[in-house]
């Protein structure tokens, strides 16, 4: 008997440990994002690996800094319009959000190198340029709103499942659901079997508000060898801010046990709200090395290796449950707070690209990035066992390839026209997400030492999410995201 009890305790502990696998989705979220760039490079599909001479090099391929023959600085504010269309239980929905931010700011200091008198001043190391900058690499702003009638299941089924797995201890979600009469024990005291009290046919709505983003403070240098070979190094101090506030509402009818001493089941209407609030902050560090080679004057080949970003993440999560029942009862539990500080590292990122210049009339550029999201890793420590998270990262995510192509036409010495296209490969192995496709276009103006670049990008992608997970019966929501962004770079050469 004692051994049996011990075994069951071990089993519960094992299951409990496994259940703490919730950070994998965040880890992948923080491993995504775009290479920071100016409006000019964004307009050509963000294919800047093999360009050089643009301030995007500070955050992209540092070798590109070697192209500068003057010092330069620029500032790029952005405007974002984020639209999320949803389909839940065949019911369409939509929500939008607009935000503005500083997207990119960078400077480069041109430093000419010296050669003894009489030496060839076009051969050897010609310049050593260094720069710094800020770039915003990921945008988490979005509002999501979906609603529909669910005739098959209820979020109470999820609570019941939790109760069957972990019991209904005070303070747990399942315990709250039991207290709120959302679930009952349909078995016996000896053999509990929790089930939903809801009659099939409930109305559900989810409202989610997200803000935040990822940014990097970059420092880099690039050196120029004979105007043919360029090499650069860079470091980034990265910052994560992610806030997500979500409410899941469910309205329906319950079978509630009422009366003493012999309770009987009475049908009551109910409305419940499950709230999840998450505030995440983190900072990290990464490095990168890049090179650009010009085999002939018209062709540039570039490559960058980005090291993993080592993040320390502070995560504050809380959840609460509130229920109104038409017999006059009101219940409110929570917020139950969970705070954790954990370390993670993002995958390596490899990028290669090529560009072809048609004298000074324009260029065509393209690059390919490779990221293996399944190598994202969360560290375990004394407080936290990340085994489950890492297992689910390995099994649910995959390597992805991002493509970027673009072209610039230098119509006159002061007017430039650009267009581009890019796809960001999906990280998920399942079909719950699509590639993100971005179309871009822009113009550039040059006024002596000053320049202005304006860019518009249009990015689309779909994702399937689940408000609660109850196996194959989990209700799914199709989210269709559209981001319309505007970028304006103001630059000055000195």
């Amino acid at each position: 008997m004692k051994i049996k009890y011990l075994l069951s305790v071990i089993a519960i502990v094992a299951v409990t440990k496994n259940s703490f696998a919730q950070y994998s989705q965040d880890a992948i979220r923080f491993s995504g994002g775009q290479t920071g760039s100016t409006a000019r490079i964004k307009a050509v599909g963000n294919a800047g690996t093999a360009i050089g001479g643009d301030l995007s090099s500070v955050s992209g391929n540092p070798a590109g800094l070697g192209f500068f023959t003057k010092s330069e600085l620029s500032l790029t504010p952005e405007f974002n319009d984020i639209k999320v269309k949803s389909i839940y239980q065949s019911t369409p929905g939509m929500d939008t959000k607009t935000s503005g931010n500083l997207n990119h700011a960078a400077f480069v200091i041109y430093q000419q190198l010296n050669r003894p008198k009489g030496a060839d001043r076009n051969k050897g190391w010609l310049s050593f340029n260094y720069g710094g900058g800020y770039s915003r690499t990921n945008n988490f702003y979005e509002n999501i709103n979906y609603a529909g009638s669910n005739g098959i299941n209820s979020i109470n089924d999820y609570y019941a499942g939790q109760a069957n797995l972990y019991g209904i201890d005070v303070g747990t979600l399942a315990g709250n659901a039991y207290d709120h009469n959302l679930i009952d024990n349909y078995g016996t005291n000896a053999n509990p079997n929790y089930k939903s009290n809801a009659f099939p046919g409930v109305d559900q709505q989810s409202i989610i508000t997200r803000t935040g983003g990822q940014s990097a403070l970059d420092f880099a240098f690039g050196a120029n060898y004979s105007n043919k070979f360029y090499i650069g190094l860079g470091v980034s101090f990265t910052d994560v801010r992610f806030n997500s506030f979500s409410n899941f509402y469910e309205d329906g009818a319950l079978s509630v046990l009422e009366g003493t001493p012999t309770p009987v089941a009475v049908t009551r209407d109910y409305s419940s709200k499950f709230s999840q609030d998450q505030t995440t902050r983190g900072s990290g560090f990464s490095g990168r090395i890049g090179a650009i080679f010009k085999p002939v004057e018209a062709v540039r080949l570039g490559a960058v290796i980005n090291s993993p970003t080592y993040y320390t993440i502070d995560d504050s999560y809380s959840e609460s449950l509130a229920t109104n029942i038409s017999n006059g009862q009101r219940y409110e539990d929570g917020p139950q707070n969970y705070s954790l500080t954990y370390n993670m590292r993002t995958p390596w990122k490899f990028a290669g690209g090529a560009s072809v210049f048609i004298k000074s009339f324009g260029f065509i550029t393209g690059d390919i990035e490779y990221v293996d999201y399944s190598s994202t890793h969360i560290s375990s420590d004394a407080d936290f066992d990340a085994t489950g998270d890492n297992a689910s990262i390995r099994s649910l995510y995959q390597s992805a390839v991002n493509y970027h192509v673009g072209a610039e036409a230098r119509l006159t010495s002061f007017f430039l026209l650009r267009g581009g296209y890019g796809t960001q490969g999906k990280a998920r192995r399942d079909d719950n997400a699509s590639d993100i496709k971005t179309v871009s276009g822009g113009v550039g103006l040059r006024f002596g030492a000053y320049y202005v670049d304006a860019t518009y990008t249009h990015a689309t992608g779909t994702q399937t999410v689940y408000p609660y997970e109850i196996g194959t019966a989990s209700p799914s929501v199709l989210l269709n995201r559209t981001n319309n962004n505007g970028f304006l770079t103001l630059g000055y050469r000195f």
Partner: protein
Amino acid sequence: MKRNLLLGITMIGAMALSSCSVNKTASNQKNSDDVYFSQATAGESPEYIAPKPVYRQDEEAAYQEEGDDDYYYYDDYSSRINRFAYYSPFSYYDNYYGNYNPYNYGNYGFNIGLGYSPFTLPYGSPYGFYGGIGYGYGAFSPYAGFGYGGYYGYGGFGYGYGYSPYSYYGTGYGYGYGGQYWGGISANSSYGTPRPNRGSGSPRGVGVGGRNGIGYTGSPNNGIGYYPNRPSRNGSNGGYSNTRPNNTGGYSNARPTRGTRGESGQSYQPQQRPATSERQPDRQPSYSPPPSNSGGGGSSSGSSGGGGGGGRPTRP
């Protein structure tokens, strides 16, 4: 058609304008875009006019130069500096020590320091990386030095302290950004309570049709707590604890619970909503009287079956 014409005229006009007077300045500086016109040239090292024996032999000249002692002094100094730094590819020297040159970038070093803090701070894990960025002034150090980071991390600022092995006075200081104490860390009142699992975003697994794919452990009926209308089991089964450890310590279950439906003869889970139930779908449900009878055998399209027996029995 008319609009197309207008558009065309506008475009042609813009092109024509752009090719003439407006951008005179721009066209004068045709090499103003390093994306296209990056032709760097190296600078020329300044010559160091060290006193040569030839001068010494020329008495007159020597005499004239001797009149300027300072010149010699500084010149000597710079030639000494040459010994350890002349061959630097990254260096730039002025002819005269101490000469003020506003364009002398060479006197500034760029340092990057990265430190690892072994200190324990309150409310924190004791380990943290601190990045320090220095843009240091070094009298003779034009080198970009990758330095060591300092070990001081307080309140979210790393104190990066760059040291360049090639610099003479070129120690750069940087205030680092980074480390885990940056930002609102102190908002966490307690550490190390992982939040509960609310799903991996892939409840149906990776495989086709939600079958046992990768990542989805267990059979489809056994997902994250999904028990589709499973009849209550009787009797014992091994392994998993069916009895909640009431009052056995360890679990705080010392609160009153309702009687189980299984024991009070009401063990049918609600299967079908009474058709007559009038429900307000707002979030403040008003009371609606329970229907007297749900009717037998009706099956709504959404009902997932199992358990059988049609509607719930009428309760008094």
